């Protein structure tokens, strides 16, 4: 018999109780992963989208409650172009709009003379022509809307012809619809307005230049934020609130799971006082007894964590498909899966420690007299 075998034998003595604890841990870890994944996804997705377009800095309104409420005049572009170190400026109008019958999609309006427009990767079709009122769908969005080149889709309740399918890599860009800036401005009744400016620098790796450009742009007018692509999400108060609430709920779920492990093992220790006394009488050290109970907690938590990682992966994948077509990125899923297991192990250790400590401190003679 091995250590692992002995621990499993102890856990299987009360299979129902162990199973319910395991389910509790799985649900907690699953919830944690979904919430942490959403929070992380929301934080990184915008940055990844901007990175893919090779934007180095983003200019938008400061202190936004939500991203799309940023309103800047398109004419600001000329001032930005004049800042030393700025190579390119691309204005963008963005909106989250109904797409098709039962989806929502991020819709971007780009100017045709912007480098991003010209460099847009197309899987098939062509770029919209001026005045055409057409749209380019990201691959995932096209799949979700069951549309292709030649189809007509409703974006913001306006019927638009699909002229191309884009082939971006990032999750957000794959689920995005792109239009000419003036078409989207007309659709949203926001002529001359943009949400943000994407900026390419002449020397993107030069930190000193980046900082100088940031300062120069920030000095142009009050109330604007000049951020790197990684910092975009931080400027959005809604995202920060969602992230904060998600983290709080996730922590509560984890605390409940840890208490559930503690409760199960505390009951197990209470039932097994005499047996623990026998082990101590046979020469088991406190450290061995501690390791036995801790090990049982870790097995419960790690198994539950594995289940929770799968549960969280499915949940996050389904949820991210509903919120943003394109689903969860594989690298994010792996990171979150590993995080889920690590969290589960921490839960197991936290929940098992007190009962294990109690068991290790039992005096053999007293434990042997226990009924």
């Amino acid at each position: 018999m091995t250590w692992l075998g002995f621990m499993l034998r102890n856990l299987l003595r009360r299979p129902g109780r162990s199973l319910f604890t395991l389910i509790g841990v799985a649900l907690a870890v699953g919830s944690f992963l979904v919430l942490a994944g959403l929070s992380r996804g929301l934080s990184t997705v915008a940055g990844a989208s901007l990175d893919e377009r090779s934007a180095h800095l983003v200019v938008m309104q400061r202190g936004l409650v939500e991203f799309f409420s940023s309103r800047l005049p398109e004419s600001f572009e000329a001032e930005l172009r004049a800042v030393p170190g700025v190579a390119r400026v691309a204005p963008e109008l963005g909106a989250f709009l109904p797409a098709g019958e039962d989806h929502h999609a991020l819709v971007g309006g780009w100017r045709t003379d912007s480098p991003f427009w010209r460099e847009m990767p197309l899987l098939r079709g062509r770029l919209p022509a001026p005045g055409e009122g057409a749209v380019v769908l990201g691959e995932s969005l096209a799949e979700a809307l069951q549309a292709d080149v030649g189809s007509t889709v409703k974006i913001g309740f306006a019927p638009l012809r699909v002229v191309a399918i884009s082939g971006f890599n990032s999750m957000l860009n794959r689920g995005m619809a792109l239009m000419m800036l003036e078409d989207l401005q007309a659709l949203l009744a926001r002529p001359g307005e943009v949400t943000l400016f994407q900026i390419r620098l002449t020397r993107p790796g030069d930190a000193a230049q980046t900082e100088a450009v940031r300062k120069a742009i920030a000095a142009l007018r009050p109330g604007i934020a000049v951020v790197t692509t990684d910092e975009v999400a931080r400027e959005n108060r809604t995202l920060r609130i969602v992230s904060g609430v998600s983290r709080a709920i996730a922590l509560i779920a984890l605390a409940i799971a840890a208490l559930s492990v503690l409760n199960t093992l505390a009951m197990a220790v209470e039932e097994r006082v005499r047996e623990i006394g026998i082990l101590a009488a046979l020469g088991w050290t406190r450290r061995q007894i501690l390791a036995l109970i801790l090990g049982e907690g870790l097995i419960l938590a790690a198994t539950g964590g594995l289940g929770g990682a799968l549960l969280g992966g499915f949940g996050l994948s389904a949820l991210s498909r509903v919120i943003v077509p394109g689903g969860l990125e594989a690298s994010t899923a792996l990171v979150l899966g590993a995080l889920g297991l690590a969290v589960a192990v921490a839960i197991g250790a936290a929940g098992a420690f007190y009962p294990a400590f109690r068991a290790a401190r039992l005096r053999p003679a007293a434990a042997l007299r226990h009924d």
Partner: protein
Amino acid sequence: MAGTAPILALDGVSRSFDDGRIVGVDNVTLDIGRSEVAAVYGPSGSGKSTLLNLMAGLDVPTRGTVAYDGRIVPSAAGWTRLRGERIGIVFQDFNLLPTLTASENIEVAIFGRVSPAAERRRRAAARLAEVGLAHCAARLPRELSGGERRRVGIARALVNDPELLLADEPTANLDSASGAAVANLLLRLPETRRVSLVVVTHDASLLARCARRIRLIDGRVAEDMRTEGAIAA
């Protein structure tokens, strides 16, 4: 003094409970020699099991000292190490773990001291064979008779090759045939394994076969008598 000293030496040992209102053992001084067979007997409540617990380091004296192999054991951890490596205990209530087989109940006594698992299994099988239960290795305690359980308990106590074996009422709750078999098994050990044996017993036939008989009354040694050639396996 290690090696020539008595295996166990109690000096003025007392153990009381409930803030001194209950006296378990009162000022006991005695030595247990190497390969000696000693029986502790007396009426119920006379402190026999408490004395055995003190000899095994399972309990701590309120007063006095217990020396093992000439050295006072300074800590609970020291006693734990001794029980793991040099002392074997046979419990009155069998005290087998109910979810483990006979073999596993023996293996569990050398967890952390003997590895790998195959070696633990090999040693458990050897001890089971020694007590005549090789065929019972895979049986759970509930599938064993009282006598078999006791013998598994003895096999477990022997798996660490102890030099001192402490047995609490080893023939209690057994029919006369099983009791006699267990007594034979235990009383052979000092000769075959050079083990010192201390037996707490009510069993007159077992008592009669022990060379030294220590009578306890109210926690005190009322009589400590040695007889030549009392053991007959």
